[in-house]
């Protein structure tokens, strides 16, 4: 017990067994915080009061929440968003690689693509795709020939409009990701005899994903919401279109808009949870400890609820 004898020799050390006296001081009063809290709550109350007195039949929202046409529209929204995002991601990677290539033709073409699709409103692009039959009555791809009006369905127009527009944004995100990876990684890979393609696929992209995933999550949430433009521009019957259809027939216009808001919030919440797991996957090997998953956070919170005094130890 040499440690104990050492401690006993020191006079300023507290005797073993007694805890040091905890400081009891009068805390500083933050009056400003109280005032601002009251002001904010007051404003919230006013907004709440306004809506409670408004001429809205709130009971219509739950009545139609799971109406079959609403659920159909919901699935159409998710479906077009996932597909358009997939188109955007694949084409975005291709464009990013083109943009970074040493070939001046491919890099200028990629630059031009991004310039055009980022520079024009997506609503205009959707309208252009949907009305393409006016300038090209026949579509002829060599292996595929059809009337344009048969080919360019609302779904097709929405997919092309949203997907090709997304590709321009995704390519810039992918390019930033690729450029964020240390040059030494490429050199080490080349020094091992790995080709350009293998280096990109096995070494650079997996590391770039850490930079790519968070803004891509953003883009996807945007896509879920932007897909509502396809209702007006291409007659694509997604969530907003199906809820406003109900609103127009029942007269509950604002109620059905509120219903759409509820579903959009549910969708964006679900997909942002998914983003956590994706970020965790690509954080492997990272120095920083992984962020808690929403599930882990819930369990931790529940555990701390179970023992109200807990955490102090």
């Amino acid at each position: 017990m040499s440690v104990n004898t050492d401690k006993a020799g020191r006079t300023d050390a507290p005797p073993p067994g007694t805890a040091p006296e905890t400081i009891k001081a009068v805390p500083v009063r933050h009056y400003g915080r109280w005032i601002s809290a009251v002001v904010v709550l007051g404003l919230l109350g006013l907004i709440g009061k306004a809506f409670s007195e408004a001429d809205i039949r709130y009971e219509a929202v739950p009545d139609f929440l799971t109406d079959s046409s609403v659920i159909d529209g919901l699935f159409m929204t998710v479906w077009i968003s996932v597909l358009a995002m997939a188109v955007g991601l694949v084409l975005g990677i291709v464009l990013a690689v083109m943009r970074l290539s040493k070939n001046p033709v491919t890099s200028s073409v990629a630059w031009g693509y991004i310039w055009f699709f980022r520079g024009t409103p997506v609503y205009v692009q959707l309208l252009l795709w949907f009305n393409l039959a006016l300038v090209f009555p026949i579509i002829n791809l060599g292996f595929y020939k059809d009337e344009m009006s048969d080919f360019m369905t609302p779904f097709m127009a929405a997919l092309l409009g949203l997907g090709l527009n997304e590709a321009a944004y995704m390519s810039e995100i992918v390019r930033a990701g690729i450029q964020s990876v240390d040059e030494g990684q490429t050199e080490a890979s080349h020094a091992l005899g790995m080709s350009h393609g293998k280096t990109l696929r096995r070494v650079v992209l997996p590391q770039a994903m850490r930079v790519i995933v968070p803004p891509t999550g953003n883009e996807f949430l945007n896509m879920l919401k932007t897909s509502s433009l396809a209702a007006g521009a291409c007659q694509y019957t997604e969530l907003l279109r199906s809820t406003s259809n109900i609103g127009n027939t029942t007269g509950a216009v604002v109620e059905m808009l509120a219903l759409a808001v509820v579903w959009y919030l549910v969708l964006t919440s679900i997909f942002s949870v998914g983003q956590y797991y994706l970020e965790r996957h690509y954080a492997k090997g990272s120095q920083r400890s992984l962020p808690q998953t929403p599930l882990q956070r819930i369990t931790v919170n529940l555990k701390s609820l179970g023992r109200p005094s807990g955490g102090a130890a």
Partner: protein
Amino acid sequence: MTAMVKAEGVHKSFGAAHVLKGIDLEVAPREVFCLVGPSGSGKSTFLRCINHLEQINAGRLYVDGNLVGYRQKGDKLFELKDREVAAQRRDIGMVFQRFNLFPHMTAIENVMEAPVQVKGETKAVARERAQRLLDRVGLADKAGNYPSQLSGGQQQRVAIARALAMEPKLMLFDEPTSALDPELVGDVLDVMRGLAEDGMTMIVVTHEMGFAREVGDSLVFMDDGVVVESGHPRDVLTNPQQDRTKAFLSKVL
């Protein structure tokens, strides 16, 4: 016996900066060849030219009798395709000052990567060799660790194992201990000493004069893009002939 590396009048410029101004040297098989000199003298650049990470502007550079990065027909030079350059690099291992391990792979995955991806080995075969190599560099128990969970010295030893996994005939070391805490340098140098004893041809850019004297078979002192002095490490380090060598050594020894 052909030289493992042969340089004839090698020049390299980066824009206006003339970094290598005519390097001539030969490295014999099984030789431990040390390159020393002040920073900016071009020794790292020369090392990077040997596996074509940098392209030389003039002169000829051969590894094991083959021109690096080019094919010669008559007196015309043809640039090699990327695929052919990659094939040349397979036989040349390189260890970097800043390790450059792949951070998203564990130690053993780092070592397995090139044999699986480049040579098309099965994972089982690659894993077995990787485990043996990690054992050799004293890190058998760290196989499942990510680079961020390893010390600098351990990372550098994994990097050496990774280079050895391709069974190279030549190893290039670019200041392998310069980024390490002093107490970790010894472990890395021990691994390199072991390699030298096994007869690996090694070119080592280093500031570790003790290592150069003890393990090196020949030493070249470079300054301002030229070879100033060369010879056996013991001779050059203890009895330098050139003033520039003397001035440099008086500062580092």
